[in-house]
């Protein structure tokens, strides 16, 4: 500890540069993680809120809930242990009829048609009733200037909807969700008030005992991975992050190794004097840890600072678990990088320190 600290103190510039590299890389990694996590959760926030185990669609919908239609008989035929809820799902483009330029006020959204007592309804609004065209919308819509009591229109329909509440963390495939009664949803979906009693799927909390043959069930995780682009995006980000951590370990390992090689003769003298390999090796490892710790700390601080300023603009989500895993990985790989140098220390021959 003593040696490691004193050297950091003495060669400030050298180590500051190394720390700067660690800061930049760790900043990039944490930032990317937050971004990937933010993007992934904006795909799945609404689904996570269901807290469901299984999702039932029709077999011929080919994983696509928007192409799945079923009626009351399918709902009744789905025997479960637990609770189930009907869900009508369809994309919509909403607009503000009061806007100067209606085209500028368009927003992509998803209409969720649900029963008023369904567990899909955001729990904080249990006292509000979804009837007629009264809807609860995701708070993303707030950014467009809507308030409670405001109305919005929808492309391809003359219906207008009244906002009675703003829910949080209810986005689906990055677009805000609009909760409405199944009847209002069917009216929108089929463009008529005289609509068939159809919906898209059944959300199940619990186990499915029996399923009509025309239906298929997915675990919630499996369903999420069928969302267009979700798996590809998560995979891309994960690979980038893993590689960045590996690169950091390599860069750090190489830096420490070069520094160690530079000090070969000094270590030789120290070994001749009877200072053990263990002490010198430990000092190399401690130094590596100190560099990583400094770098990561600043990297994390920068990330949270960025998050504070940018979270409105970009999907930025902090996930302590991911951060801990990445931090552990940083330390672990840096340790392996440092081991190269320890190996080099072991090989230094104290004989060379004396005479020539």
């Amino acid at each position: 500890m003593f040696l490691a600290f004193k050297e950091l103190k003495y060669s400030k510039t050298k180590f500051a540069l190394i720390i700067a590299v660690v800061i930049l890389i760790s900043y990039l990694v944490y930032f990317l993680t937050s971004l990937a996590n933010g993007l992934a959760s904006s795909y799945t926030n609404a689904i996570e809120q269901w807290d469901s185990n299984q999702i039932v669609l029709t077999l011929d919908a080919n994983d696509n809930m928007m192409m799945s239609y079923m009626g009351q008989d399918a709902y009744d035929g789905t025997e479960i242990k637990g609770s189930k809820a009907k869900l009508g799902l369809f994309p919509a483009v909403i607009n503000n009829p009061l806007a100067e330029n209606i085209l500028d006020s368009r927003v992509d959204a998803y209409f969720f048609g649900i029963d008023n007592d369904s567990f899909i309804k955001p729990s904080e609004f249990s006292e509000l009733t979804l009837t007629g065209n009264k809807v609860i919308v995701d708070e993303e819509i707030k950014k467009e200037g809507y308030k409670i009591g405001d109305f919005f229109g929808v492309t391809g329909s003359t219906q207008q909807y009244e906002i009675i509440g703003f829910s949080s963390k209810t986005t689906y495939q990055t677009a805000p969700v609009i909760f409405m009664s199944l009847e209002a949803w069917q009216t929108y979906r089929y463009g008529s008030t005289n609509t068939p009693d159809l919906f898209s799927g059944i959300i199940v909390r619990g186990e499915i005992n029996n399923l009509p043959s025309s239906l298929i069930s997915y675990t919630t995780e499996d369903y999420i991975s069928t969302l267009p682009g979700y798996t590809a995006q998560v995979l891309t980000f994960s690979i980038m992050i893993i590689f960045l951590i590996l690169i950091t370990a390599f860069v750090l390992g190489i830096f420490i190794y070069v520094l160690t090689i530079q000090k070969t003769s000094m270590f030789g003298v120290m070994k001749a004097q009877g200072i053990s390999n263990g002490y010198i090796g430990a000092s190399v490892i401690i130094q590596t840890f100190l560099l990583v710790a400094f770098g990561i700390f600043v990297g994390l601080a920068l990330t949270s600072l960025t998050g504070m300023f940018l979270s409105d603009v970009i999907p930025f989500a902090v996930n302590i678990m991911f951060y801990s895993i990445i931090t552990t990985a940083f330390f672990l790989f840096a340790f392996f990088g440092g081991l190269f140098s320890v190996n080099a220390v072991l090989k230094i021959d104290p004989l060379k320190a004396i005479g020539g």
Partner: protein
Amino acid sequence: MKPLIEMIGVTKDFLQGDNVIRALKETNFIAYESELIGIVGPSGSGKSTFLTILGGLQKPTTGRVLLNGKPFSELDIKEKSKIRLESIGFILQASNLIPFLTIKEQMVLYNKITKSKVNQTWMNDLFQKLDVEKLKDKYPNELSGGERQRSAIAKALYHQPSVIFADEPTASLDTNRAYEVVKLLAKETKEQKKATIMVTHDERMLEFCDKVYVIVDGVLSERTSVEPNNQTKTMNRENVSAVRS
């Protein structure tokens, strides 16, 4: 007088290709307390081999080394390392100072490694004796060659070893500085009852030695009298008295 380090029947063989080279012929050597012993010899004569075997950095092919009357050369690497740390002080050519520690921290390092208490009184004594008190918060590269070697002596003495190895301690110094350093080394050897073994190329430094050994082709022999070498030598002897007075 107490023998501090002894070599009994030591030889050292090296393999060079298929040939066995005997770098050190059978050697017996004793250094008693309060003795400053000079070792001279041309390069490649076996000086380094002699010193490294004495210091436990390599094993003799035959024979043994005793340190403070106890077996030393037979111990394993770890134990030898530990004993070197406690019982041997090193003063090396390029100085044994660590570049990123101040002079004071060089001493404290020993306490950190052995998890012992800093001996402040003894450190101050040493600094005073070696006249490095004003340098104690400086880094080695801020010191002159002489100051560096004086600090190196302080470091070698700080942990109170019984034996001191000095390998070309004056190599980078001018004559006056060199005399000063060797004189200090001789004085401390006497005062603290150490055995100091100094390898040197510099015949002038042998003035201060109690015994002088010569190694030629792996054979160690004591030089019984200081043979009158040449004019330079006589001139230097006058210098010595000038420095001494």
